[in-house]
């Protein structure tokens, strides 16, 4: 059975009690969490923790993603892997270092990313608005991917596609939500705040999935290593943002599961309230558990599993040269 993600909202202290995690909240409650049942731990409040608690999480291979209040995603504590494979990392770096191989992987990632953006716009075409021209223009960007000859140019194609795509959001989203312009650091309005929060959730989902393979999360193919974050997670997240983040955003807003009063304007931007965050996380986790019949695996798989099989597919590609098939929405 796949394990669940666990989200802690309270402020307080995380410690170790024998083989169990213990959380003492500031308002005097104590909770125990069996560490074996956790896939990934998310800390959303102000939590103090010590090395003994981290040691336990490390022993069980549980990554911890820390979300602060003002700057949503703070960072990740990544436990060390039980199995490391020198061979895998060597091949991963080789593929990065070889211009043609790197470009091929980057092509696959960006093509899938644009395909998934297009699938979302197509879904709303005719249903809400006329998106024919946006679909066409995304189609053009998709076609351009094949002909790019270096990664920088490719990033340009992806940026153009994303601009076309985000411009559709205002018409997809029920009033008064609007994106107008994608802004972060900090997000200035509600839609931007939602996109930022959901995107960082997708990113952390990818970090956790990569942790389960022997791939090195810092070596990506589209993004340059040396950025502050795990570049391979940024790469894989590009594929899944339209599937995991944007669909959740549309649903939450259009079904009015989230409203303007779930946000507060702070000095440094627009932020989700705690209730707002809970609603978003619930919808996000529910989406991770959705299943689709996989065309090549003989069974239904959850979206969460798709992230993992994507990483497997990449790993197989770097090790064997067989095609990498990042998830392109087929359902």
């Amino acid at each position: 059975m796949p394990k669940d993600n666990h989200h802690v909202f309270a402020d307080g202290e995380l410690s170790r009690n024998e083989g169990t995690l213990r959380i003492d909240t500031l308002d005097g409650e104590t909770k125990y969490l069996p560490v074996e049942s956790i896939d990934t731990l998310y800390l959303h409040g102000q939590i103090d923790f010590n090395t003994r608690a981290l040691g336990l999480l490390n022993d069980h291979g549980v990554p911890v993603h820390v979300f602060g209040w003002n700057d949503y995603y703070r960072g990740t504590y990544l436990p060390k892997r039980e199995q490391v494979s020198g061979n895998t990392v060597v091949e991963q770096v080789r593929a990065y270092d070889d211009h043609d191989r790197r470009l091929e992987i980057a092509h696959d990632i960006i093509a899938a990313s644009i395909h998934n953006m297009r699938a979302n716009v197509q879904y709303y075409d005719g249903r809400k608005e006329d998106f024919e021209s946006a679909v066409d223009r995304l189609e053009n960007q998709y076609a351009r991917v094949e002909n790019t000859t270096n990664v920088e140019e490719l990033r340009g194609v992806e940026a153009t596609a994303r601009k076309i795509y985000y411009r559709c959001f205002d018409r997809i989203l029920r009033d008064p939500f609007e994106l107008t312009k994608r802004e972060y650091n900090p997000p200035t309005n509600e839609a931007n705040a939602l996109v930022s929060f959901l995107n960082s959730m997708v990113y952390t989902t990818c970090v956790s999935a990569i942790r389960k393979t022997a791939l090195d999360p810092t070596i990506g193919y589209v993004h340059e290593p040396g950025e502050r974050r795990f570049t391979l997670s940024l790469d894989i997240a590009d594929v899944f943002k339209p599937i995991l983040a944007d669909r959740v955003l549309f649903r939450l807003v259009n079904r009015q599961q989230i409203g303007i009063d779930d946000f507060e304007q702070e000095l440094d931007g627009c932020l989700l309230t705690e209730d707002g965050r809970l609603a978003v996380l619930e919808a996000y986790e529910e989406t991770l558990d959705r299943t689709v019949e996989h065309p090549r695996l003989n069974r239904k798989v959850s979206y969460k599993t798709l992230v993992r099989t994507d990483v497997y597919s990449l790993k197989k590609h770097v090790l064997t040269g067989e095609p990498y098939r990042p998830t392109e929405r087929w359902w």
Partner: protein
Amino acid sequence: MSDGEDVLKQYLAAERDPHREPRVRITGLMVQYYHVCKRELWFMSRGLDIDRETTNIQRGTHVDENSYDDRRRSYQINGRIQLDLLDSGDVMEVKVSSTLEKPARMQLLYYLWYLDEILDIQKDGVLAYPKERKRETVELDSDARTEVEITIRGIINTVERDTPPELKKKPYCDACLYQDICWV
């Protein structure tokens, strides 16, 4: 001398010499995998790991030890083979089901061949399926010997390939540990 014979000769020479290591250490599991799926053998020989949580079915390599009341002892030989010896002196291999009969039989024959060729011990084998209350005797006759030798050459050729053997759907895929890496 053909290439195939060469590979086998080298393997035998290295195994017989206590100071040498063959290029490929052939285990009983590898013999099984070779007859189930060469691609699985390649993945396994490369130490390709996958997250065990996601696999739906795990292979039943170990049947309940109590399902048999024969008295037997386990031996582990040169880190390659792990076999059970019955009081009668026969080598016994226990399997969950007889659906993968050939791989199980080849594994047992490999043990018998190894004992004979490398350690100069001659034994017969018993293949047992406790769940099905079935057992059969396995002998290393000259046909079986040839089959084992073809298998050994095949294994060495497979694991020394740079890329895995081509993907083909097998009935076994749905129960395979590598399913998720193979088909994605």
